[in-house]
């Protein structure tokens, strides 16, 4: 475990039972140790009780996905044992509470009947009774280290040492469990203490009890199971780093990008972006800026609307008044925004719509992954509504794209749909200061009207590049209209003016396609000359890149074409890449292979090999690796991957 550090740990338990915090602490523990970390949360649309788990991946260089089987499973309840028993690697470990050993799967209320049935019949085939202890025995027989924690006793010990009662330390069971895990993985108790200090920053009594609990658990493991061979420090020691979810980092990008108004209606998985921005609504400026402006702090207004129709129309109003505005939503909200999107196209209003995709159609599964809104976004809004649509592949991209989207919206006076997804939203990534340098994206507010001019202001003046000089409301007399209008914004039904205005809008977006550099539209990874091209969009990128490394080790050379700008589409570039490939494989998490459809629409190229995932779970390194291999070696046309519980 020195050169090739690659650890995958999973912690599972009931929703509301601290899975999220456990994951956060695990992530920080490994970061402190100098590693790069990727962690992702899988959970039900439920407040309390349903099964949830957090998967953490640790490497020296940044991991971009998780993988199965895991090197360690922490089971906070019996359901976790049943649900994940077959996702543990040989020679790894499972940590569990000794008190749950007698649990019969049939008695676990929150477990869904479909799941019980499937697992039940698997267990039956293996000759295992659906009782936790039997599964543990089976694992043990298969060489897995089974680490039973007498949590009740350990709590008692902790309480005694803290001179308090058991109830007041009850919540430390998670800390105990993850401490046991990192102990087995060779991490010292000091590191976990630091992590506790970070995570519970400022809450002294909570920190104290968790630190004590960690010590007690560490000692217990040491005494009873032995701790792991100490792990070396990773390459990122002694640095000021950050760890953030996709939701967090998009909020950061918007703030850095000069957003001043965000309207939203809560919807999973978008709302945490708005919340996080809201928490930082009154933010500190960089020192140089504070000095120049003579103020320390400025504000961004985050406003909860009554619904998504309200949210986008408010954002439109805000944009007309001159604010940099955005709204954030997910599929159902996007559907509701269609009319206002078409309005923003017609009235040429700069507004960013961040769309955190989740599992559809319809309400579907609010907390699960899906990349299903691509074509809906490109064709959102009735009546010929060309616009800019971009899709980010990971946290860092999402950060910069959030900034760029704000620029493009104002520069081209158009709605910009920024597609991100649940995978990015609820995964965490470690990164450095240089990774999120806002100065790389200068703020560009586009063309302004010179307000000292004396003629009547034409809000929709037809210019060479089809962009009319802007002016906020309050500075010039003007009209803005959702109807066909003349250059002044006054309604007209003159046929010739209509033709001109429709062409103005269409050509403005075509023009954006010409002006925006190709590097903002696509990325080409891997072996640039490979004959096998994988094509994808959005967060599927991460696991594919990880899988490509595995393929490379086996001598299979591949390249990845990640398409980031969906409209206007980089047709020529994409056509060239695909036409110069011998094998092209499309990977995405939707049923229609929407990117493949969009590619064909724009280039004529038919991608014949497809890998899709429909389960609502993250795409993982190992399964995409297997699927790619199967396409490459067995020439399979369609592989549906389904791993993950």
């Amino acid at each position, binding site marked *: 475990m020195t050169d090739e550090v690659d650890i995958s740990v999973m912690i599972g338990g009931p929703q509301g039972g601290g899975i999220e915090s456990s994951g956060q602490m695990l992530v*920080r523990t490994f*970061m402190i140790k100098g590693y790069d970390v990727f962690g992702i949360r899988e959970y039900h649309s439920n407040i309390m009780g349903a099964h949830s788990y957090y998967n953490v991946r640790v490497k020296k260089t940044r991991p971009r996905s998780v993988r199965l089987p895991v090197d360690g499973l922490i089971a906070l309840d019996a359901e976790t044992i049943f649900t994940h028993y077959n996702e543990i690697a040989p020679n790894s470990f499972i940590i569990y509470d000794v008190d749950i050993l007698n649990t019969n799967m049939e008695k676990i209320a929150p477990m869904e009947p479909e799941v019980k049935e499937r697992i039940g019949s698997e267990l039956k085939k293996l000759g295992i009774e659906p009782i936790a202890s039997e599964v543990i025995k089976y694992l043990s027989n298969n060489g897995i280290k089974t680490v039973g924690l007498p949590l009740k006793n350990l709590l008692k010990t902790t309480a005694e040492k803290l001179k308090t009662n058991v109830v007041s330390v009850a919540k430390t069971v998670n800390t105990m469990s993850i401490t046991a895990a990192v102990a087995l993985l060779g991490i010292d108790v000091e590191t976990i203490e630091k992590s506790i200090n970070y995570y519970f920053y400022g809450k002294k009594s909570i920190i104290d009890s968790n630190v004590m609990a960690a010590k007690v658990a560490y000692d217990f493991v040491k005494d009873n199971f032995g701790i792991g061979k100490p792990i070396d420090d990773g390459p990122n020691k002694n640095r*000021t780093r950050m760890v953030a979810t996709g939701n967090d980092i998009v909020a950061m990008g918007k703030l850095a990008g000069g957003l001043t108004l965000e309207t939203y209606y809560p919807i999973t998985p978008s709302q945490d972006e708005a919340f996080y921005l809201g928490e930082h609504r009154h933010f500190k400026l960089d020192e140089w*800026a504070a000095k120049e402006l003579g103020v320390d702090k400025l504000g961004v207004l985050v406003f909860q609307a009554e619904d998504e129709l309200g949210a986008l129309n408010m954002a439109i*109003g*805000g944009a007309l008044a001159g604010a940099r505005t955005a709204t954030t939503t997910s599929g159902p909200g996007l559907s509701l925004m269609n009319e206002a999107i078409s309005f923003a196209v017609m009235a040429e209003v700069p507004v960013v719509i961040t769309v955190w995709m989740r599992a559809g159609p319809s309400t579907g599964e609010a907390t699960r992954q899906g990349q299903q809104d691509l074509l809906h976004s490109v064709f959102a809004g009735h009546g010929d509504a060309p616009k800019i649509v971009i899709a980010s592949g990971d946290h860092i991209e999402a950060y910069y794209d959030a900034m760029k989207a704000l620029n493009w919206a104002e520069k081209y006076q158009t709605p910009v749909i920024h597609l991100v997804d649940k995978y990015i939203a609820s995964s965490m990534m470690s990164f450095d200061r240089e990774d999120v340098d806002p100065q790389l994206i200068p703020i560009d507010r586009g063309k302004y009207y010179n307000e000292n001019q004396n003629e009547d202001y034409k809000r929709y003046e037809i210019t060479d590049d089809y962009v009319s000089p802007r002016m906020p409301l309050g500075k010039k007399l003007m009209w803005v209209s959702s109807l066909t209008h003349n250059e002044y914004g006054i309604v007209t039904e003159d046929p010739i003016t209509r033709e001109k205005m429709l062409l103005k809008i269409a050509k403005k977006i075509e023009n954006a396609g010409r002006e925006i550099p190709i590097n903002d539209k696509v990325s080409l990874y891997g072996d640039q000359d490979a004959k096998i091209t994988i094509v994808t969009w959005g967060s599927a990128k991460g696991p594919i890149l990880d899988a490509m490394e595995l393929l490379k080790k086996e001598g299979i050379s591949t390249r990845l074409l990640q398409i980031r700008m969906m409209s206007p589409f980089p047709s020529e570039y994409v056509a060239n890449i695909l036409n110069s490939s011998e094998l092209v494989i499309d990977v995405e998490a939707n049923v229609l292979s929407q990117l493949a459809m969009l590619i064909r629409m724009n280039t004529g190229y038919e991608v014949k090999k497809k890998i899709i995932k429909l389960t609502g779970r993250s795409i993982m390194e190992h399964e995409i690796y297997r699927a790619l291999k199967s396409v490459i070696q067995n020439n399979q046309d369609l592989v549906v991957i389904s791993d993950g519980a």
Partner: protein
Amino acid sequence: MMARNWSDYKTSSWVQWCPACGNFGILLALQKALAELNLPSEKVSIVSGIGCSSRIPYYVKTSNIHTLHGRPIPVAEGIKLANPEQTVIVASGDGDLLGIGAGHFVALGRRNMQIPILLHDNAVYGLTKGQAAPTLPLWVKTKALDSPNIQSQINPLLLAFASGYTFIARAYAYHVDQLKDLIKAAINHKGTSLIDILQPCPTYNDIMTKEWYEKRIYYLTTEDSSWDPMISSPEDFDAKAPKILSKMTEWGDKIPLGVFYINMSTEPLDTRIEKILPGYLQYPPAKRPIEIKSKPLVHPFTEFKDRIVQT
């Protein structure tokens, strides 16, 4: 600055309403109100939805937005959130505000933003050729309907009250001067106001005509010179609310006009925001700096300390 005249707010666009449409009275009253308040053209935004009445932005020389059917309120709110100094007026139809837009109408009340709502209440959908609007009474059969209206009317005044509006009035489109005064008061009111303007539609509403209205309308203050819609304390509320509410329900042979309710004790949204976001009023979203020579003002590591990990 010179005092303005109502005709300074006229545009050269052809006013496309039918002859004798009640909207003409509303347009004139609005222009007069703007003139008497002496508001600069670019500092006022009239925001409308879609309908006959919603064409009004083209006829007033202010900086106006013709939005979507049912959505003038959120667009107006967005403008006001971004720039609280802009005078923002919503003028739209009864179908627009109380039918497709009713959700926003209700939500606005919770915010008490300084936005007057001019409700062009003709009880029909004018522009789509005369269907029943939410204010058309049950069983009325106007000539465009193929059968009597089977949906009951809703009460805009009570709806506004239930939603939290703090200035509630009813007017009549042809009483231009009275309406003008109400519009002025509503524009100045530091909170959300509704003026339900009874507006004859000679083309499609052949039941609730000029004559029909003029037989029924009267002013609250004429009937009862002690009428006092102003509420300034919870005690005041307890004392006056029953009468105000029951006046709001009066509809039939007699239809009261005037101000029903004013509540000055509810804070408007902008000062509420200032409390949770200090500096908002000085640097509202439309006006705060976001860059210096194109350079962004904040690096994430400066502000988002809660995500930092020292390794």
